[in-house]
């Protein structure tokens, strides 16, 4: 129940020793601020990194051929080998748990200004993809659409360009759909423009990429049945590593690669990477809690210590109160309320200041000046921090309150 007198006394007690109260409260303030700042910072890093992967299907792996590291079946060590469309067909037909597979062609070009539109030109990479690649590495479209199955089947001379390519070849705001551009000497119709952004992608920056139907590129670049790399996506509930293992076995069998050859096939398992990132940020979070909680705990010890001193200083006052009829529980509640108040005020100011600093940091790093809430704690973390303050504030007062409760009026009054 609200007791105005008690709160009045708490205020008087705290304000009687302003400097001491402020310094004591600062320990708690700093502790909770550190906790909030570290957790918010950890969250921010995690979200920033996760955002880079946000357009990638995390249940997928990316594979490309390398050099063998073991001699096998009469083939020398260090042999170059090449994935082909036959491998992809076998994989599609036999691998259990495979949801999607998307082959890619990434021809190397040394030419400069290989992409031209009228007077405008630039140097960009072309990549041959299937339509289902968009399921694995989603593109956000500024104009038009991504490749579709008809483009693949009919070997259409169409392309999807990245935002940087659009900026170089087109005027600002110009509709690029249906316009022709020349890539490595061949004209293609633009069917879409992808945003790209800072997100992670393979084979270079998506903003500077020109995506052509896989089948079109196969013919026009005369690459035969060559496949430079492919993405494989596992079905829901199937581990990517299971799918990858089956794929690697097929490739090794098809190309006479030693089963124990670890270097012949290059791969990038997104599920594993995500797991490792998850562990890394779990570690960061645990560290943030340990450091933040440790700092906060030091602050709480400070509060408890000062409350002990306060009780010692107020022994006579407590004795007078006891002589006048104050029950031990009343004295205990009084001391605990004081400790709780200092901790709560400092703690909630610390949380608020932490959130404010994170918000300012968020505003500072955002591109458009609006807060992104990347570097911020969650509502539940804030609730947890508040609960910690309440619990620790109560605990901080417990020792001094017990000590105050044990003061005998006769002993206290004899201290005159």
């Amino acid at each position, binding site marked *: 129940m609200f007791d105005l007198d008690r709160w009045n006394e708490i205020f008087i007690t705290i304000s009687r020793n302003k400097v001491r109260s402020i310094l004591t409260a600062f320990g708690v303030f700093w502790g909770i601020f550190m906790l909030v700042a570290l957790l918010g910072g950890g969250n921010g890093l995690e979200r920033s990194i996760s955002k880079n992967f946000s357009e990638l299907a995390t249940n997928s792996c990316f594979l490309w051929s390398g050099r063998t590291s073991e001699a096998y079946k009469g083939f020398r060590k260090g042999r170059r080998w090449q994935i082909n469309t036959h491998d992809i067909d076998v994989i599609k037909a036999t691998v259990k748990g495979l949801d999607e597979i998307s082959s890619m062609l990434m021809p190397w070009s040394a030419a400069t200004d290989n992409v031209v539109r009228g007077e405008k030109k630039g140097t960009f990479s072309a990549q041959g993809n299937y339509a289902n690649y968009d399921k694995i590495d989603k593109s956000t479209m500024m104009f038009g659409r991504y490749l579709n199955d008809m483009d693949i089947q009919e070997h259409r001379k169409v392309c999807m360009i990245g935002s940087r390519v659009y900026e170089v070849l087109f005027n600002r705001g110009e509709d690029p759909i249906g316009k022709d551009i020349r890539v490595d000497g061949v004209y293609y119709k633009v069917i879409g423009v992808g945003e790209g952004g800072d997100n992670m992608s393979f084979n270079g920056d998506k903003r500077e990429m020109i995506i052509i139907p896989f089948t079109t590129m196969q013919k026009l670049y005369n690459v035969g049945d060559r496949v430079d790399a492919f993405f494989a996506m596992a079905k829901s509930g199937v581990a990517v590593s299971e799918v990858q293992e089956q794929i690697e076995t097929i490739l090794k069998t098809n190309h006479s690669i030693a089963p124990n050859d670890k270097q012949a096939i290059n791969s990038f398992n997104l599920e594993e990477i995500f797991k490792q990132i998850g562990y890394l940020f779990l570690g960061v979070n645990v560290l943030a809690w340990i450091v933040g909680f440790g700092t906060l705990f030091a602050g709480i010890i400070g509060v408890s210590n000062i409350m002990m001193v306060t009780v010692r200083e107020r022994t006579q*006052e407590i004795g*007078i109160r006891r002589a006048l009829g104050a*029950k031990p529980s009343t004295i205990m509640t009084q001391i605990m309320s004081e400790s709780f108040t200092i901790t709560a005020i400092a703690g909630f100011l610390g949380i608020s200041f932490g959130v404010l600093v994170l918000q300012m940091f968020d505003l500072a790093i955002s591109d458009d000046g609006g807060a992104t809430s990347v570097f911020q704690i969650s509502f539940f973390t804030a609730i947890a921090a508040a609960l910690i303050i309440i619990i620790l504030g109560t605990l901080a007062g417990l020792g001094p309150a017990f000590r105050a409760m044990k003061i005998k009026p006769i002993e206290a*009054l004899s201290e*005159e």
Partner: protein
Amino acid sequence: MSTIIKLKNINKTYYNGAPLHVLKGIDLEINRGELVSIMGASGSGKSTLLNILGILDNYDTGEYHLNNELIKNLSETQAAHFRNKLIGFIFQSFNLISFKNAMENVALPLYYQKVSRKARNKIALEYLDKLGLKEWAHHMPNELSGGQKQRVAIARALISKPQIILADEPTGALDSKTSAEVLEVLKKVNATGMTMIIVTHESGVANMTNKIIRLKDGIIEKIEDNSEHNISAFGIQNIK
């Protein structure tokens, strides 16, 4: 007259180092409305006796009846309840709480009786008025003279309408003129029917009481009836 305090073979020993038998079989009866002084040399046990009477300290053996209640083996909470309801304390060094004004100090016992702030402040002002301190109600203790502080302490002792007032050297920190004024107030309070026990080493103060209990080495050496002398010494007027 009915008995308000009855002590039967009270013994108290302190064990800080060598055992010190401070009270040795004290038997005492004090009637309702009496004004009693306890005198004795330093170490005679008078403060210990007052502390036991005020339920500030426990006794080892014997029996203590206050207002027909046996005061023995009380918990701290029970002791606090009895002190609040039955006893008013007046101390030599006033023992006012420094960060509370006169009115708040006086009202403090009622706070522990859960009387509302408004009601207890009103009652406190009434008591301060009776003691001539109404205009000082909002002054802090450090703004009051010694006599004023002791009158505030008396008001605080009276506010919960206790059965007895225990005063430990109430004039010990005051000059002679102020002492006389404070004693005058105490006499007026006693004249209302309030039982009052004063511990003092000043014979002048003891002579103003009805009964003088002389302690020596933890034993009641003598109880002197002083009523006639006392009445002639004061022109008693009832306190309002």
